[in-house]
């Protein structure tokens, strides 16, 4: 590992000759960070003029080390380019990690920055730490991007899916596990994946007649939140301003929830448009509206303009006031409509990749050794 870091450092220093030093990102972690920066390999990064703008094409492989005494499960880095996107920012999150104390691990950042040559300023590109999640669900970091919640949800999903695959292995042996893995790969291949544009406040287009469309809901029996009613405005390939009414049917207060938003086009094809989140304080039995003024626009699919005809919502996750979370169980996700549309968790994606690259034996080994 140490030699690898040395190579990364050498490559990073060599690249200083190809890219101006001011263009390279400034890596800035807190002094008491449980993760330390070892070095970076900037590979084939370059900067070039494109018309009246400069285009930075950055390919960075950061080498980080776990300098804490706990195992790391996930990390979120925050990327800021203040003069390119005033206030806007990006993040790179790696989940399903299992990094022990003093072990190093890579994080890859591939980004492009386009900024005007004149008047563009030259504020540096900053890479900072937003959060680290440990195996005991402890968290470190400024959490400006709500990384704690996102990483915790991922860890819960990872535990659920590892448990599920281990259960399959225990019940039906390698054959049953393999069957499920192959089914999951087939579903992943067939799952619709769409491009989307998103903007706050207002419509993207104004020549399509707009109509109010009512939400239908998929009922997940053990969800702590019950969606009661909902509407959104639809105009052609654009959906905006969803409004939902929900009720807390659990015995604990809820502080955050997300409703998955499924759209159906004119040909009856369904796809997951996004999640409508709400930060609230919902006591047991209490009802609350959820409002959002964002507009989503979908480009043509298979060369045909996408005309949205219907919508369905389902509760995709809930965070209680005590910090614990609820996610759908595997039985919920096995509902055919959801199975067809909702993608696998990050952990399931990782396990499928192990099967694809290294085979069934490696997958079984991973399942048996991970939660030792």
């Amino acid at each position, binding site marked *: 590992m140490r030699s690898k870091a040395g190579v990364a450092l050498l490559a990073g220093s060599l690249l200083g000759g190809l890219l101006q030093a001011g263009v390279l990102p400034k890596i800035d972690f807190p002094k008491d960070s449980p993760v330390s920066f070892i070095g970076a390999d900037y590979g084939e990064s370059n900067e070039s003029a494109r018309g009246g703008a400069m285009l930075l094409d950055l390919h960075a492989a950061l080498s980080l080390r776990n300098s804490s005494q706990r195992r790391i499960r996930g990390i979120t880095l925050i990327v800021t380019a203040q003069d390119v996107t005033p206030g806007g920012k990006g993040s790179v999150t790696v989940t*399903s990690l299992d990094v022990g104390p003093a072990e190093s691990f890579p994080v890859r950042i591939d980004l492009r920055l386009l900024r005007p040559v004149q008047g563009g300023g030259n504020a540096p590109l900053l890479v900072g730490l937003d959060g680290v999640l440990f195996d005991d669900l402890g968290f470190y970091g400024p959490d400006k991007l709500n990384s704690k919640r996102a990483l915790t949800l991922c860890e819960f999903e990872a535990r659920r899916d590892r448990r599920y695959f281990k259960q399959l292995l225990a019940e039906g042996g390698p054959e049953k596990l393999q069957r499920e893995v192959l089914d999951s790969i087939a579903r992943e291949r067939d799952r619709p994946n769409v491009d989307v544009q998103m903007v706050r406040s207002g419509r993207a287009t104004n020549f399509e007649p707009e109509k109010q469309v009512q939400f239908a809901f998929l009922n997940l029996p053990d969800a702590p939140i019950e969606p009661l009613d909902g509407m959104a405005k639809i105009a052609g390939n654009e959906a905006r301003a969803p409004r939902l009414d929900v009720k807390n049917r659990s015995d604990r207060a809820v502080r955050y929830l997300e409703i998955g938003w499924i759209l159906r086009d004119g040909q009856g094809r369904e796809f997951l448009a996004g999640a409508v989140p709400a930060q609230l304080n919902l006591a047991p039995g209490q009802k609350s509206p959820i409002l959002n003024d964002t507009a989503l626009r979908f480009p043509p699919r298979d060369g045909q303009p996408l005309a949205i005809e219907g919508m369905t919502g389902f509760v995709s996750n809930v965070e209680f006031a005590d910090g614990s979370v609820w996610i759908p169980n595997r039985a919920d996700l096995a509902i055919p409509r959801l199975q067809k549309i909702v993608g696998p968790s990050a952990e399931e994606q990782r396990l499928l990749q192990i099967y694809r690259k290294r085979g069934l034996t490696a997958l079984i080994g991973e399942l048996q050794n991970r939660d030792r």
Partner: protein
Amino acid sequence: MRANHPPETELALYSGNDLSAWRSWGIRRHLAACSECRNEVKAHRDGLAAIHDAAVSETPGHGNWQRLSLEMTGNIRVGLAAGECIAGFEKTIRPMKPRLLWHAALVFAAVSLVSIAALSINLSKDERNGLFANLGKIRWERMFRPLRPPSFAQDAVVLEAGPAEIEVKSNGRALSLTHPHSDGGTVSVNMQDSAGVRYVDADSGQVTTNRVYYAQ
């Protein structure tokens, strides 16, 4: 009026070469067969020649009548052109109102109907059904409406997410996160603040999620 003969006015204009080419051709055909009208034209031309000679003899220095005529014509044209130029300053420039060319639209519609009728008579039942199915897909409600580019406002901050990359852009500036070392990603949108894509890195096998955010 003389029956079967051209009017005298036309013969007079023909004599001075002031008749349109089409009418001149008609008169010439008639003159070839009509001595009476030929004499009439000759009389007109003799009269014109006499007037021309008299004008030349009375002009000081026996001026060139032809040249004078050309100069006058030229002056008239210059005057008309100058008037055109000035007219632009005198008039208030008003925006042109969009005009629906209804007559053109009607002609187009009529031609389309006739074409469809002719096609449908000559088409088989399956082909006819296909034609009508395609006609049914035309979005009639959008006809005669002005088209505007379906894009967000220039100054709006727009998040774009696709399986290949995600981007936050505004005013010609953009920050994109890509994942060239994977076979594709899964797009996710959080309507509160961000859009993202999750992928498995082909080299490391790590699951990575890239996201772009609005300003907070």
